[in-house]
Structures are given as structure tokens and as C-alpha cells.
């Protein structure tokens, strides 16, 4: 503990949580760095929410330990941890006004009234809800409730802030706006944020690092770019963005090994069948089976020799809908850079 910044904010040491026969979390190791915006991404039932609840103290590990800045908190009740949570349904107290909701943590800690009022004002300022202190939660919109929940958690200066699907209940426009705002608030307060989401776009937009969860285990941890560009497993390649998975005979023709690899649709260039393969590129012959015009870009479904369908996405920079639709049924040559291939194992 000599240099606090080198101590991980959260460390999981072989943490498991079993519900009867179900291994919700299975021997998990994880480190969240001090001050980062960390996403736990995965489908429902992958164990990400259970991990969050164990950090908050609502749930205890069946085995293993959880450390908060070096302190073992595995068996501490929620009210003895310097961790606060923004709940999916916000969980605001309906009988209190916005100001009292935000001041709740301070009221429990018996902070004097003057200081409470002052800090509530600061928080309302931070989440851009000045002048809302006397409203009841029922008089607020979804986005405003979310901000109150955020302020109520942040006013306690937690060491780590947990967010459980924080934007799940908001509509698309508001969600995109809050993504930017949450990121900005995190920069300003400098607190470690850990948030749980099943939305890969949200995870990529907001986080410094992402842990991809699947069946109680972490498939991959990395920056959004690493996760996207270099998916470590077929699951990650499929869950984060869309990906072509190539295996067997076709894989052997491209890479010389029958190990499965993934290639992102936008990395594939669609060329004419007699085009030469540029240096450093690999190529495959194929026939365009389907063309879907999507305005900004077009999605092609190309069947390559060996019977695999590859999805190719190209921006409509110079082409019109007439041009792209006429390609259907034609022979083409697909090429992409060797570096864009990610081996994802069996």
C-alpha cells in the first residue's frame, strides 16, 4: 500500500458464486485499475451482475476473495464498504424529495445540515439538475431520475462507483447523450467506475477497458480496440460487433492452418474477379448471393468456394443503390490484410 495508484481498485482472487448447481461465477480472477472506467459486458446470465453485486456486498462469494484497494471486503456488509451503486431501476426513495435522496448517505453519517445542503447543491450542479432539490422522484423523467441516482451515489465520495445497466431504461437519444455525460463526469470526479451492460456499443463508447463475460468466466479483458480488433475467442468475436468466423478447409486455404479465425465485415474489400491480389493481402474467390442496401453502407453476402458465406460491408462512398444492387449474382474476389485476421482457437 506504499503507492496507492499501483494497488488495483478491485481485485478478484479465484472468486466463485454458486446458486445450487449453477455456477454463476466460476473461479474468476480480475483486476480493475484505479481511476479507470471499466465495463463488464456479457449476455444475461453470464455472471456480470453477480460480480457487481458481490463488489457492492449484496451477495457473498461461495469461495475466493474480493479486495477493495488491497482490503479484503469479501464478507463486509454493504454499509461497511466505500462502494456505491447506481441501480438499474434507480431505487430512489419515493417518500423523499430529490435533495433528501441525494443527502441520504450524509444524513446516515450524521454530517451537519449546512454541509449537507452545500454538498447536495454541488452534486445537483454536477449532474445538471440545479433547482430540482425540492421535487419528488415521481415528478422526474427517466433521465433525471438517473442523474439523481448518480448524484446520490457520488456525494459519498466512494472509492468505486458501480453502475448496473445504468442506461438500460432510457430511450436511444437520451442513452447516447448520457453515455457522453457519464464519461465526462467520471473524468471530473476521478473515481473508478465499474459498469455492467449487455450492450456492446455502450461498452465500446464509454469504457477504458472491457471484460467480456460468458458463462461465469471472463473470455477476454482489454481496451475496446483490442476487444474489437483482436477478439480472443469465437464468443467475443460474435458478441462484440459482427464477425465472420472461418474454419476448416477455407481457413487452411487462407492461413495454411485449419484453426478458426475471425475477420470483421468492414475489413474485407470487394474486388472484381480478375483483380490482382495486392501485396500483403489474402484473397478468396466468391459469388455475391445477396445485397442489402442500408443507405450509409451496403451489406453483401458472399459465398466463397468451400460453401462458407461471408458478410462484407462497404461504405457507399461513390456507389448508388443501382450500382450495388446490380452486383448480385456476380463473381467477385474478396481480399483483406493478413493483419486483420484474428485466430480464435478451435
Amino acid at each position: 500500500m506504499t503507492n496507492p495508484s499501483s494497488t488495483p481498485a478491485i481485485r478478484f482472487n479465484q472468486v466463485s458464486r454458486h446458486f445450487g448447481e449453477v455456477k454463476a461465477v466460476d473461479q474468476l480472477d480480475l483486476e480493475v485499475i484505479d481511476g479507470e472506467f471499466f465495463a463488464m459486458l456479457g449476455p444475461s446470465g453470464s455472471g456480470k451482475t453477480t460480480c457487481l453485486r458481490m463488489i457492492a456486498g449484496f451477495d457473498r462469494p461461495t469461495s475466493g476473495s474480493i479486495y477493495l484497494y488491497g482490503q479484503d471486503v469479501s464478507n463486509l456488509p454493504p454499509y461497511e464498504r466505500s462502494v456505491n451503486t447506481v441501480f438499474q431501476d434507480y431505487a430512489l426513495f419515493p417518500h423523499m424529495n430529490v435533495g433528501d435522496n441525494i443527502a441520504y448517505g450524509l444524513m446516515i453519517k450524521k454530517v451537519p445540515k449546512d454541509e449537507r445542503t452545500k454538498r447536495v447543491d454541488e452534486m445537483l450542479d454536477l449532474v445538471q439538475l440545479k433547482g430540482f432539490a425540492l421535487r419528488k422522484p415521481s415528478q422526474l423523467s427517466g433521465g433525471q431520475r438517473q442523474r439523481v441516482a448518480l448524484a446520490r451515489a457520488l456525494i459519498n465520495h466512494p472509492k468505486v462507483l458501480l453502475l448496473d445497466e445504468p442506461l438500460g431504461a432510457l430511450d436511444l437519444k437520451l442513452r447516447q447523450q448520457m453515455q457522453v455525460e457519464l464519461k465526462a463526469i467520471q473524468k471530473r470526479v476521478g473515481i473508478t467506475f465499474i459498469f455492467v451492460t449487455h450492450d456492446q456499443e455502450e461498452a465500446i463508447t464509454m469504457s477504458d477497458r472491457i471484460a467480456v463475460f460468458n458463462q461465469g468466466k471472463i473470455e477476454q479483458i482489454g481496451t475496446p480496440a483490442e476487444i474489437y480488433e483482436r477478439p480472443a475467442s469465437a464468443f467475443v468475436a460474435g458478441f462484440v460487433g459482427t464477425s465472420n468466423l472461418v474454419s476448416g478447409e477455407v481457413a487452411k486455404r487462407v492461413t495454411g492452418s485449419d484453426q478458426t479465425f475471425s475477420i470483421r465485415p468492414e475489413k474485407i474489400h470487394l474486388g472484381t474477379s480478375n483483380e490482382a491480389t495486392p501485396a500483403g493481402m489474402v484473397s478468396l474467390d466468391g459469388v455475391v448471393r445477396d445485397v442489402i442496401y442500408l443507405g450509409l453502407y451496403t451489406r453483401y453476402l458472399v459465398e466463397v468456394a468451400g460453401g462458407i458465406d461471408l458478410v462484407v460491408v462497404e461504405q457507399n462512398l461513390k456507389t448508388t443503390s443501382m450500382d450495388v444492387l446490380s452486383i448480385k449474382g456476380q463473381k467477385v474476389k474478396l481480399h483483406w490484410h493478413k493483419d486483420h485476421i484474428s485466430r480464435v482457437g478451435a
Partner: protein
Amino acid sequence: MHSKKAPLGLTIAAIGTLLFLHVPMLIIFLYTFTPDETTYTFPLPGFTTKWFGVALQRADLWRSLILSLQVATVATIAALILGTLAAAAVYRSNFFGRESISFLLVLPIALPGIVSGIALRTAIGGFDIPFSFWTIVIGHATFCVVVVYNNVLARFRRTSASMIEASMDLGANSFQTFRHVVLPNIATALLAGGMLAFALSFDEVIVTTFTAGQQTTLPIWIFSQLNRPRDRPVTNVVATFVILITFIPIFLAQRISASSSDTEGENK
């Protein structure tokens, strides 16, 4: 939908039902003012308020009234505590036999009073407990608990479970969470349940008949008055008083639960 006028038949049926339910009470009210103490003649042969005075003079009536108020108060307090605890247990934990316990708790209100009464009398007699004020309270608590339990459980089910977690997350221990979050949220349910329980206890006859010793609660006192036709107007005065004392809490309880369910609807 609401602007459309109800068909004539429905209107008549509604008015008929209301008259059927309330005309007898109006008659009681009317004959508190009759100067003729033995017969019900209409129109009244005159108008007098002397029976109110007579009722005030009756010491036995006062004793019964005070006993009834005491029983109702203690039974209601017991019901509030036990009913809330039971509701919290059934709502929060998922233990074996939870549904059966819920059913057993609600059963006394559905069971005929005569059955509860005889069962209680046998049990109390069997344990050699002397019949007293407290045996009446125990008898009343059996159905008062149900009313509180139902009200509080319904409120718990409408409250977001994460609210309790949020409170603990923000540093409050179990006691602080109960005081600052749980109690304010169930307060109106407690008030409504408590008033209903009070009203139920206050006019209970059957179970009381079986569980009381020498004590006479107000409803039993009224019942005993049937054998004394000369006191009929006094009984009417008391009946009117009981109607009022029962009407007010039930009216308030309805208002409270109606208005609180409105605001909670908004939260969802």
C-alpha cells in the same frame, strides 16, 4: 367512457342496493329522537334528545365503551407489530412452507367467527388461562393481524426491492434502513390496516362472546339490551355512536390507501 350515462336499470339497481344497505341504519338514527320508548311509530310522535342524556348517565354503558376501546387499541397494536413482521418475513425470505404460512395467516378472517370462537374457548380453557381482558385481546388479534398483514404485504410487493439495497449501499444498517426507508413507505398501509383492525375489533360480538369472562364489551352490552324493550332508544343512541366511530376510521382508511396507490402508480 366515464362521460356516458349509466342505463336506467343500472341506476335503479345501484340506488336500490344503497337503500337496502343503509335504510336500517337511518331508522336507528331516526328513533334515537323518539319520545315513545317502546314502539316504532312513523312519523315520530315527537322529537326529543333526552335519550342522549339518559345514555350518558348509564355507568354500565360507559364501562363497556371504555373496555371496547381498550381492547381495540391493544389488539390493533399487537396486530400492527405481528402483522408487519409476518409480512416482512413472507415478502423478504423464500423459506420452505412460505405459501402455507401465508395461507394460515389469512385463514382466521375467512373462518366463521363461531368456529374461531369455540376453538379459542377450548384452547384457553384447556390451558387453564382465566378468561379476562387479555383473552378478549387474543381473540381479536387473530383476525386483526390478517388485516394488517394483507395491507403491509401488498405495499411491500409494490415497493422496489432495490430500495432497501440502495439504503444499505448508502451506509445505513438494517435498523436505519427500517426507520428511514421501510417505515415511511409502509406508513400509510399501517395506518389503513390499523384503522380497519380497530374498527373490526370494536364491533366484534361472536369471538368476544366465547373469549370474554365477566367483561362486557360494547357490542355485547348492546346485544344484552335486546331483552329490555324499555331501553330501546338508549340502545339506538349507542348504535348511532358506534356507527360513527366505525365509519370514520374506515372512511379515512379508504381515502389513505386510495391516494397512496395513485402516487405509487406514477412511480412505475
